[in-house]
């Protein structure tokens, strides 16, 4: 087990720079999720930690060792690929035992460790099978087994659940988290799915265009997004954003959208007349008398909650409420917003105010 330190890492392909000085500190035993839209550089960063991709600048340390020029096989890491990357010509047992065989461990030790991993992952019945005779979830577990037997310093996961169906994904999510709790090994996990990030991570690294946008615990990112991108990326459904300005009203300052919609403001450093983006999460809006008048567009009941899309002027606002709403499209209802739940961002810089 080890910590991982990523310092000012840069990646260039020819003259094109795709990674612009990334800094991430990963503590020993931490479960860190790299998340971001596709093309943000999260997989590249993971592959650089693995040593599959050379870095053009900066440094990466695993434990106390600088690994910039250390080949993958000497980094003492294990990796699970999105495609699982099983060896098709080897049985499950041979696949799991492969790293040990390469390390020239005695046969008895390999058998023992393979059985141990198979036991943890519920693969004992399938040890003699070939990958083609396994389901997606089983293949996924074989790939994890191959990582476990190594007892590596760091586990790397590259979108390991993307090829599974929705139900299995939830199950495997729990299994991976459980595995982390049991083994306590440092994990770096890449995903584009913010729910996976929120549910599994000790720490989330949100990336965009080769830069780190924000690093923090899941709920910290949810509560205190540093900018519009993080606010919109974390949380599902996504935060509502309304553009407008700060205006002086009869009862103190308010936010006034370009269509003239007036919304309550939290205490803020924003000055009057400043162009801002007003952010409010759907789950922080309640429906009731005396709220902001909006026209219902669509009501989506899911049983446990109801999602209401409503329009005020040009702005489509999304709200999620616990009660069951029986409003019809076109009907007017009131959205109530608690000023404390509002996040304000500068319109130009998109940074939190």
């Amino acid at each position, binding site marked *: 087990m080890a910590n991982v330190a990523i310092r000012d890492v840069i990646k260039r392909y020819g003259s094109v720079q795709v990674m612009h000085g990334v800094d991430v500190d990963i503590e020993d035993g931490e479960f860190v999720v790299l998340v971001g839209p596709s093309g943000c550089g999260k997989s590249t960063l993971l592959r650089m930690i*693995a*040593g*599959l991709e050379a870095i053009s600048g900066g440094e990466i340390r695993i434990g106390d060792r600088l690994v910039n020029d250390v*080949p*993958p*096989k*000497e*980094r003492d*890491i*294990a*990796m699970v*690929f999105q*495609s*699982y*990357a*099983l*060896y*098709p*010509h*080897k*049985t499950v047992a041979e696949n799991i035992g*492969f*790293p040990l065989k*390469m*390390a020239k461990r005695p046969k008895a030790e390999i058998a023992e460790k393979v059985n141990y991993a198979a036991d943890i992952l519920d693969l004992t019945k399938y040890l*003699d*099978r*070939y990958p*083609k*005779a396994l389901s997606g979830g089983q293949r996924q577990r074989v790939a994890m087994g*191959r990582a476990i037997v*190594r007892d590596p310093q760091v586990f790397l996961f590259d979108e390991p659940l993307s090829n599974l169906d929705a139900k299995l994904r939830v199950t495997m999510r729990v299994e991976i988290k459980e595995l982390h709790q049991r083994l306590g090994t440092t994990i770096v996990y890449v995903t584009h799915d913010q729910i996976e990030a929120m549910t599994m991570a000790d720490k989330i690294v949100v990336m965009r265009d080769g830069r780190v946008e924000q690093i923090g615990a899941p709920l910290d990112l949810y509560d205190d997004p540093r900018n519009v991108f993080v606010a919109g990326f974390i949380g599902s459904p996504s935060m509502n954003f309304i553009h407008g300005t700060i205006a002086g009203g009869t009862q103190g300052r308010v936010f006034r959208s370009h269509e003239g919609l007036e919304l309550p403001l939290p205490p803020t450093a924003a000055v009057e007349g400043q162009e801002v983006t007003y952010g409010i999460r759907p789950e922080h809006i309640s429906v009731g008398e005396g709220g902001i008048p909006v026209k219902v567009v669509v009501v989506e009941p899911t049983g446990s909650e109801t999602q209401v899309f409503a329009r005020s002027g040009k702005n489509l606002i999304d709200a999620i409420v616990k009660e069951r709403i029986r409003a019809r499209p076109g009907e007017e209802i009131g959205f109530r917003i608690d000023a404390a739940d509002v996040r304000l961002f500068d319109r130009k810089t998109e940074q939190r105010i």
Partner: protein
Amino acid sequence: MQSNKLGWFLLAPTLVVLFFFGVIPFFYVVWLAFHQWNPFAVNPEIVFNGAANFRQLVFDQGFLASLGVTIAFVFFAVTTELIIGYALAQAFMRDFPGKAFFRTIHTLPLIMAPIIVGSIWKLMTTPSIGIIPQFLDNWFGYDLNIGQSALAAFTVTVIMDVWHWTPLVTLTMIAALVSLPPDPFEQAQIDGANKRQIFWHITLPMIRPAILATVFIRLMDALRTVDEVLMLTGGGPGSATRYLGVHIFKEVFPKTNYGYGSAVSVIVLYLTIVVCWLLFVALIAPRNKKG
């Protein structure tokens, strides 16, 4: 029903051609193998002689010697082609300046007719006029004479076959390597395998079907090599390069011994099937059974 009829209609020309030029000659040869037939002899009748051709074959020193040198020829030629072909394929997987040019150039031997290849090699290896004996003599003081040395003649036929057919192996190996998924190889690096281990444990098993298919093709071709060798050495010196194809040719055409030649052909076909079947059983079948 309609599409079925149309299918047969479209297949018909091929089937007719195949029937007249493939099926009939095949059974004709099998049938001839049990007969004595010298069409240009005093008595040109086709006479049934049972298994006499095959009995003669078993005790025919010429045939047995031919079988021996053929096996050696096929073994050395195909093995060398596989090794060089794989190495070239790996080289062509990398990027280097002029790659497309060299890849095209290196396939040129494939489009040459065997008889031409034989002629060129004969020109190049004939003592006194050939470029190869000339250089060997100048540089190493080695006197290459494929008309006298059995080993030299054998070696040159192997080299000629390697020169002619390695590009085919390279092409199939490139096709196999290109179609490999990259992930298991990166995984193997992470799993701590070095280059040699990756080759033996990952690359080789994953391209095994392609290797086997290539070996089958080359094996069948090499077993019936005739024209190149006939052109180059005429099967000599002595019977040093009298491979089965050459042997059959010499039995059938100069000696006009059609029945006996047919029997040898049938045996060569049988041998080819047996060897391919053995290879298949040894290399592919166990894996499928376990899976």
